[in-house]
């Protein structure tokens, strides 16, 4: 009896420890969804990223900002191994998703990209119907067992992307026939349809007008409840509006990362200050 009494807390502690290990926390107590540890990226001989250490916090929007060529998109593309498609690209260091190394050889890249979805700068719907654009992912990943279930996924994804009301009467119309802003939200619906945990957005609003931009920003804010979002943007104001954390990249180095409100009122690093205030020479 006494043995049991002493054993059981130890077992509980062990269980706790494993749980804590799987859900790493930042110093200030936020759960970490993805973590970059000493990430270096090379395009051939040229090094594009130098020792990037960056935690992506769960269910928060992290904005990556910096001048063109600073490596922010490169870093973003590392997070779901989109850089694999570039032959001369080589990634060193560790990137983990819930503590799991995503560059491990045993990782199924297709499954990884279902968990870490992506939305691109230019809306790129498939040349298919609105319905098919959203249904494609769940179908190839086998996420639905019946037509009715697939219909549900399509409708709820379009709803979450704030597009359903606008297109519900013409789901068979081609996706490419929508306006730019609608197309981008269709792409977001397509990304959501496979139930990702992380959504990467590479300048999702740069090809949109201010109203469509506002809708996407509103959407990002809503998606934050269920998804972890990483967004690359050239618009300082957009980073300030939509994100909780901001990371500033310059010349392949992560210069500064912090709460967005601090970054835009009182950045610590001189280079951040110069960039966001428009003083870069």
């Amino acid at each position: 009896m006494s043995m049991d009494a002493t054993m059981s807390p130890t077992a509980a502690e062990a269980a706790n420890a494993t749980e804590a290990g799987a859900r790493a926390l930042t110093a200030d107590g936020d759960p970490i969804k993805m973590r970059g540890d000493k990430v270096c990226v090379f395009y051939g001989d040229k090094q594009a990223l130098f020792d990037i250490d960056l935690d992506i916090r769960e269910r928060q929007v992290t904005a990556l900002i910096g001048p063109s060529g600073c490596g922010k998109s490169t870093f973003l593309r590392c997070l779901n191994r989109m850089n694999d498609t570039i032959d001369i690209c080589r990634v060193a260091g560790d990137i983990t998703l819930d503590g799991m190394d995503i560059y491990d050889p045993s990782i199924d890249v297709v499954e990884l990209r279902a968990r870490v979805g992506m939305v691109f700068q230019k809306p790129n719907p498939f040349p298919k119907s609105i319905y098919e654009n959203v249904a494609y992912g769940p179908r190839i990943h086998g996420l639905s067992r019946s037509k009715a279930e697939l219909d549900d996924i399509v409708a709820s994804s379009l709803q979450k992307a704030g597009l359903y009301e606008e297109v519900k009467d013409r789901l068979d119309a081609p996706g490419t026939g929508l306006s730019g802003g609608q197309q981008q939200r269709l792409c977001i619906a397509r990304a959501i349809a496979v139930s990702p945990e992380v959504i990467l957005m590479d300048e999702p609003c740069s090809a949109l007008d201010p109203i469509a931009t506002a809708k996407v920003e509103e959407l990002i804010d809503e998606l934050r409840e269920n998804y972890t979002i990483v967004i690359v943007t050239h618009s300082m104001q957009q980073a300030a509006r939509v994100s909780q954390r901001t990371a500033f990249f310059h010349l392949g180095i992560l210069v500064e990362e912090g709460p967005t409100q601090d970054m835009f009122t009182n950045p610590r690093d001189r280079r951040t200050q110069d960039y966001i205030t428009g003083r870069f020479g």
Partner: protein
Amino acid sequence: MPQHTVTSYDDELKGLASRVAEMGGLAETMVNDSVSALVRKDSEQAQKIVQTDKRLDQLQHELEETAVLIIARRQPVAQDLRDIVAAMRISSDLERVGDLAKNIAKRVIAIDNSFNSKRFALGVEHMAELAQQQLKSVLDAYAERDAEAAETVREQDDEIDAIYTSIFRELLTYMMEDPRQISICAHLLFCAKNIERIGDHATNIAENVTYMVTGSQPQDERPKVDETGFVESGNA
């Protein structure tokens, strides 16, 4: 700090700072002149101060409009944003300083000249010197972007508060000595209160300079020595 890529942005920010400096100079002069008008019973000079205040008000309006326009046009962030916010806040403090100086000037015109006010006004004059010094130091701190100097100004405000308390006692004594002096002493008491308020505005400005330079407001409570609330007429 390097220039903005858009150089007209720099010009706009510089314009804002120089307008704050202009307002500061004007407010300083008004405080100087109002107190010297009080001591010399110079109602002509007092009239001029009332006119100067209109100019100060106008400058504040212009500054505010410019600041709003810059915000709308440039969406300032970080240091630029803090500069603009500080300029707006400081300008409204300076505008209030002008109002208080104007109020002293109006009292100069209203005060009954049959009394020798010089004896009574000595304490007020001394207090005004300190307030002027505070105002000057804090405007220098703004121009030099010197947070340490601003902090010193903030710490020194309790001296003005202490003098205010002692003037309060002194004037109360005069009033009890001779009821015919009540009118002039009441006016002087308001003048002293105005100067004490000018000191408070200098402190506000100091806090805004600190914010502008460092990005955070001073955290600690400023020591408060205004004890006039505890002065009883029996002890005065």
